[in-house]
């Protein structure tokens, strides 16, 4: 289907450190966006801190996309240094196209062996002739022409990015773009294959959003005004995004000495009445677990966004995996009911984080919001996100008074919380088991009553219909969570176009579990494909622990670092026999 193909293009731009592959990709996505397209970009880096090879993986489409496609239509190599590192990430087809610089050295043999059409453009030589010209801007011009993107916006996009770097850079960049855009080989290459349609197709408001930024927006919307931060890949950008913006809203961010401190700072701030959050990744979450139990026991609202990466241990810090699920669900010591949520796509990072914050505040407990590197550090151009959260009560506060019972055994399990400064209500928040007043107690009755209370407030709450994103009908269902949901939706759409109705159930609320709701969502389903990015099948084991799935079930579970693609899911369903 040429028309469909033409509206959904995947390109990879690779280069060694400093070649500007990432900049070219970002500019291309922005340019496509200004031309009415939607899209997504993932960055891929080698392990070096600076100067390593980098790849911009860009998908441009006329419809919202939330995951990368199975293969790439075009690979543009600014040079070939360490390009083989990206080989498994950039799948090419026989009808793909490679654009390379003849002066950048020989094409690595594994790539040449694919026999893919090669177009040679002397990007370095073209750039050399332009003062302050750079090969990556030549490449941007080539790709813009190949995509039939109207070049008028290019000047504005270049100005926007390079304005701070001086007039010479701006002019050089504009000229390099023009040199690429006008290069004759692209016109020839375009004639040989289906071409993208560059017409303006999307006129509505669009956002340019990373998953980490989405979590940041959701946190602020939810009322977070304090964050504690210890740097860790791939969560640091979320914390860095929050730092100035919290201050703009009158809040603050405190850089901690370690994750043990950051989670305790969050609990301290929240004890003080200010909604508080931290963000981390697997190893950091492991360090926070002890104090996460304190938040549960002392009933202090606290939010931890955990951006999952390849594990265990240092694992693969710059790549994605969905393998911290077990830790988020079961890592706390003692019987510690808490909330675990998983964001499903970029826009959903906003919703899920805001919901997590509001639930933590309403229920005076810990909420863990799970995302992953794939979601957190990729960018999408999407229609302006819109969602509606059900009305949630704010944190229930105690007014000035006498005879205050911090941990009163209420029917809902939620007890009014006195904030320091409130006269007459002084109490001691305690991780020691306590009675209703907060007095330490090891009595069986107090322990049982407080355990019941902490469970009751979470189990008895009505979470409404946000527990999952349920789409489609059909006797086959894909049951998934987190960022794998995007690939599942795309797989379901492909199968639907072929006449195979598939429904997708993506769980957003993992704890507490919603077994009755899932049973209803799966009614009439005869086959369930569980999809997750975990070698140990953590999601599947979670499903077996909390749910009765009666349909025949298979599991597509594999580890990172490569994201699960729609094609893999389609194949798993097509090969079911």
């Amino acid at each position, binding site marked *: 289907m040429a028309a469909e193909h033409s509206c959904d293009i995947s390109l990879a731009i690779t280069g060694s450190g400093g070649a500007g592959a990432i900049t070219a990709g970002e500019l291309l996505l922005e340019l496509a*966006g*200004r031309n009415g397209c939607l899209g997504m970009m993932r960055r891929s880096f080698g392990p070096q801190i600076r100067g390593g090879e980098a790849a911009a993986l860009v998908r441009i489409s006329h419809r919202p996309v939330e995951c990368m496609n199975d293969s790439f239509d075009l690979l543009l190599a600014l040079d070939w240094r360490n390009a083989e590192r990206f080989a498994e990430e950039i799948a090419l087809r026989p009808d793909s196209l490679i654009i390379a610089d003849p002066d950048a050295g020989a094409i690595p043999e594994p790539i040449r062996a694919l026999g893919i059409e090669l177009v040679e453009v002397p990007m370095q030589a073209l750039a050399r002739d332009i003062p302050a010209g750079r090969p990556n801007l030549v490449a941007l011009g080539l790709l813009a022409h190949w995509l039939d993107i109207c070049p008028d916006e290019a000047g504005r996009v270049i100005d926007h990015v390079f304005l701070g770097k001086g007039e010479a850079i701006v002019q050089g960049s504009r000229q390099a773009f023009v040199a690429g855009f006008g290069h004759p080989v692209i016109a020839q290459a375009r004639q040989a294959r289906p071409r993208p349609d560059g017409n303006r197709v999307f006129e509505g*408001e*669009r*956002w*340019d959003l990373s998953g980490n930024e989405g979590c940041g*927006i959701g946190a*602020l919307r939810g009322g977070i*005004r*304090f964050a504690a931060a210890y740097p860790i890949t791939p969560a640091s950008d979320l914390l860095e995004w929050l*730092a*100035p*913006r*919290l*201050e*703009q*809203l*009158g809040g*603050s*961010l*405190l850089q*901690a*000495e*370690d994750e*043990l*401190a950051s989670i*305790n*700072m*969050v*609990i*301290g*701030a*929240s*004890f*003080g*009445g*200010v909604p*508080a959050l931290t963000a981390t990744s697997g190893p950091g979450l492991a360090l926070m677990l*002890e*104090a996460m*139990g*304190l938040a549960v026991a*002392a009933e202090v609202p606290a939010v931890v966004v955990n951006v999952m990466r390849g594990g265990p241990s240092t694992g693969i810090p710059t790549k994605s995996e969905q393998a911290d699920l077990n830790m988020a669900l079961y890592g706390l010591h003692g019987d510690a009911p808490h909330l675990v949520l998983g964001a499903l796509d970029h826009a959903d990072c906003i919703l899920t984080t805001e919901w997590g914050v509001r639930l933590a505040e309403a229920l005076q407990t810990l909420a863990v919001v799970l995302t992953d590197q794939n979601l957190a550090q990729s960018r999408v*151009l999407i229609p*302006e996100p819109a969602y509606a959260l059900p009305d949630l009560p704010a944190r229930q506060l105690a007014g000035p008074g006498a005879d205050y019972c911090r941990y009163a055994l209420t029917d809902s399990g939620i007890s009014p919380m*006195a904030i*320091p*400064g*409130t*006269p*007459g*209500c*002084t*109490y*001691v*928040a*305690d*991780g*020691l088991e306590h009675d209703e007043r907060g007095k*330490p107690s090891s009595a069986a009755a107090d322990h049982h009553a407080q355990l019941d209370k902490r469970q009751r407030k979470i189990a008895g709450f009505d979470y409404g219909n946000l527990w999952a994103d349920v789409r489609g009908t059909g006797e086959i269902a894909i049951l998934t969570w987190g960022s794998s949901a995007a690939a599942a939706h795309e797989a379901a759409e492909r199968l639907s176009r072929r006449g195979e109705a598939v429904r997708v159930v993506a769980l957003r609320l993992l704890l507490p579990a919603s077994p009755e709701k899932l049973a209803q969502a799966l009614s009439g389903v005869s086959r369930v494909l569980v999809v997750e990015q975990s070698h140990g099948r953590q999601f599947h084991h979670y499903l077996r622990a909390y749910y009765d799935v009666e349909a025949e079930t298979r599991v597509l579970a594999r580890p990172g670092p490569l994201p699960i693609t729609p094609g893999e899911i389609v194949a798993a369903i097509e090969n079911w026999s």
Partner: protein
Amino acid sequence: MSRTAAPATMAATPKDYKSDIKPVWCPGCGDFAVLNAITKALAFLELPREAVAMITGIGCSSRIAAYTSVYGFHGVHGRALALAAGLKAARPELTVLAAGGDGDGLSIGGNHFIHACRRNMDLTYIIMDNEVYGMTKGQASPTTAPDWADGKLTPRGTGIRPFQPAGLALAAGASFIARGFTGDPNGLAKILVEAIRHPGFAFVHALSPCPTFRPEQMEWKRQVRGFDIEPTDDPVEAARRIQADDGMSIGVVYRNAYPVFRPGGAGGESGGESGGVRGGGSMAAIERELRL
């Protein structure tokens, strides 16, 4: 006991700052005197109970939060200073005290201690030092002498030189360093008043004997003496005094007017350099940044 704060017109008494919970401490424990000194200091300063928070970790001495009538948080082992920093960042107008033992503050919480010193938030931190883990019944701590052979995990002594808490605080950049002794509760209360009034991180090292596991510490009352000079603001001089001392001199040894850290510039003075305009922005403006 009434739970409402004493009106400003009525002189507060130390008793107003005590809860009705009976301490778990052994008879003769120095921590009783620390509790008395804290409540005396709070009464002297006439701080409303609801404007004070006492944050502690885990251990015998960390139980102290429950024995006061101010707001309190009895958290996890070693993290009192992190809880306190978060609370102070969120609520700069509160008077925030943190307290705990030598194991809590210098072993499991050692990293937080040195970073709290250099961060210099406006907190008061009291280490109640008895050179032993009491709640777990008698193990050596980071301040235990190397030849103390009664430690159940170190039957031949630790063989490790102990931390010098005042020297550690000085090296880490604390702006107020004092040592007090529970055998002199009035002197300790006076030190605490100064510590609470000090703008910045005030470290009070309270020698607090353990009659149960370190009965020989009952001799401390014959060994302590006052620093015979005024506090210095010269860290080199402070280091000399601390190094020359046997650890039994009490009083304020060092005081300096380092800038007080307030995250996000909360409460006026600037803290970090984030480029943000504190409180001047709006959610709508932040969301506009994400529009294409």
